[in-house]
């Protein structure tokens, strides 16, 4: 039998495109279109109940000059950087332990790490209210031990409580990419390092650390990008001092009824987080390149 025309089913590349097209269309419809709309809105202006559709930059001007917005941007950036740093620092040893000393129980360890995800995100954040509150677990315990005589108020409704809660929410997402990059390290490389005279710590610093860097960078970015725009955690445990940029964006789209301003703040936050993530990736690379020598 001879076939002169080949059905599209036979073409590897077309078949691939067909397979991914539902995802691509979905992403286009639900990501690209809304983002494009937000960008459009950010150049318009709210005038009482209607929207003035002439192109202007006044929203961006406000976003970068008004002290309230600047303060919230800086705080969001600061909180997300702190959260990413603390999360990665806490996740790294766990990932290292599972990868290098997990032995037969690696899968069990990974399962244990994902157990908290069996409860909802909201519930986990709410739990921190119980832990950090006025009559919460931490305060009660410290009082009972006699270490303090009145509850520490600074635990809840501050930037600190936001950081603590976010670190807890994201640490598993940081452990996994670091673990995966460590699993890919050929163990004979570490042995070769030892054979060439390295102490255990030195071979870690010169081999494991630089080779697990891709995982560290992904972990950092995975944590940093969503936390900068996190809305739930600062709403629930942040109070006034823990408010972040997402809260004011919500206010603009909500009570304030100023969609163009909210849109401009959203776009600014996106640009800022991309820049910040890019800079962090470069800095981490430089840092580890310096360390391995």
């Amino acid at each position, binding site marked *: 039998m001879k076939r002169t025309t080949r059905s599209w089913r036979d073409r590897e590349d077309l078949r691939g495109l067909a397979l991914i097209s539902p995802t691509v269309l979905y992403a286009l419809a639900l990501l690209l279109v809304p983002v494009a709309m937000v960008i459009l809105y950010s150049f318009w202006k709210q005038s009482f109940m209607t929207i003035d559709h002439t192109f202007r930059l006044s929203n961006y001007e406000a976003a970068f000059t008004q002290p309230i917005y600047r303060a919230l941007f800086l705080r969001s950036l600061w909180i997300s950087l702190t959260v990413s740093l603390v999360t990665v620092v806490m996740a790294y040893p766990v990932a290292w332990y599972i990868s290098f000393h997990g032995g037969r129980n690696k899968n069990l360890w990974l399962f244990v790490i994902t157990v908290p995800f069996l409860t909802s995100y909201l519930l986990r954040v709410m739990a921190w209210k119980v832990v950090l509150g006025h009559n919460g677990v931490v305060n009660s315990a410290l009082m009972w031990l006699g270490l303090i005589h009145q509850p520490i108020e600074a635990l809840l409704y501050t930037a600190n409580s936001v950081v603590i809660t976010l670190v807890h929410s994201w640490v598993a997402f940081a452990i996994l990419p670091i673990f995966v990059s460590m699993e890919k390290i050929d163990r*004979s*490389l570490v*042995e070769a390092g030892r*054979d*060439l*005279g390295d102490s255990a710590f030195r071979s870690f610093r*010169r081999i494991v650390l630089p*080779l697990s860097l891709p995982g560290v960078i992904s972990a950092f970015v995975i944590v940093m990008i969503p936390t900068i725009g996190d809305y739930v955690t600062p709403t629930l445990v942040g109070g006034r001092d823990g408010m972040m940029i997402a809260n004011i964006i919500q206010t603009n789209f909500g009570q304030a009824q100023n969609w163009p301003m909210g849109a401009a703040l959203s776009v600014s936050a996106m640009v800022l987080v991309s820049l910040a993530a890019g800079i962090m990736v470069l800095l981490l690379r430089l840092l580890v390149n310096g360390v*391995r020598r």
Partner: protein
Amino acid sequence: MPDRPMIEIAGVSRNFGTFRALDDINLTIAEGQFFSLLGPSGCGKTTLLRLLAGLDVPSAGTIRIDGEDCTEIRANARPTNMVFQSYAIFPHLNVAENVGYGLKRLRLGRAEEDRRVAEALEMVRLPDFGRRKGNELSGGQRQRVALARALVMRPKVLLLDEPLSALDKKLREEMQIELRSLQQSVGITFVLVTHDQYEALALSDRIAVMFAGRVAQVAEPMEIYQHPATRQVADFLGGMNFLSARIAGETGETLTVETDRLGTAVLRKPAGFTASGNRATVGIRPERLRVLWDDETAPHMLTGRIASRAYFGETTSLAVAIEGLDAPLSIVETNDYGADELKIGAEIRLAYDPEALVLVSDPAA
């Protein structure tokens, strides 16, 4: 060369759970020797090499290197360096950084470090490769970088874990020659782990053949090939025809045996040989049997029929059924004459030399 011992392995065992990977190993390796640990996979040869490197600790016994007890000393403090089977080239470093990896700790200064790296790369004939990344190298080049990285440390002992097994045949043969001449020029004691008997025979000053965690025989290549101590060693190093024989007489060092078809011979006893009853196993290598063509004759002849043949270009392997023998004899015939006449079913005459018969210990006999 003075035979000063460089490595002394005494009563070394290594258990993994209930599995005994090494069982009471005793070996002495002389300074400057090219020593091979030869055996099938799972015989414990790599485990032993890792114990020498300090990457693993024996369950029992001691290891002395250059007179110093190294049993408890870890890899980073031993005067040994290793070429790993996977080569373990650091992927985030370039060739020069790979080779200079171990020198950094010695704080030699930049100039001396660079000089030694260049010298080592020169030695493995990769002088202009310093700036290449590890993943831009071919298999043979990676192997040379791994060699240079170990040799640059000027170890007392260089350990090689199947270094040539990942290379294709032609490259492997080239590297064998190079490895041998490199060892002779640097004069360092080499310990090579291999499952390839030809590699071990071609490269080594001495070979230890290992089976199931034990050393079966230690000898020079020619001795080990011509006088294998046990049936297992004989079988692992090339083919061997085994024949059952009757013991007709015994002195301290020799045994007189009568074979069914290959006559009577006085044979040297291998080390540790003990006769069980009046039967013994003798062997003859396939290449020591020769086809007799036309009206050629020989003092010792056999007649048989070709049962199977395999043509290898320069040689032909035959299995020849001989009346009165249980199993056909394997023979390897050089194809210098008459290869087309070696057809299955053809009747041929074989010549052999009774001196080619060897006596082997055979626990099964």
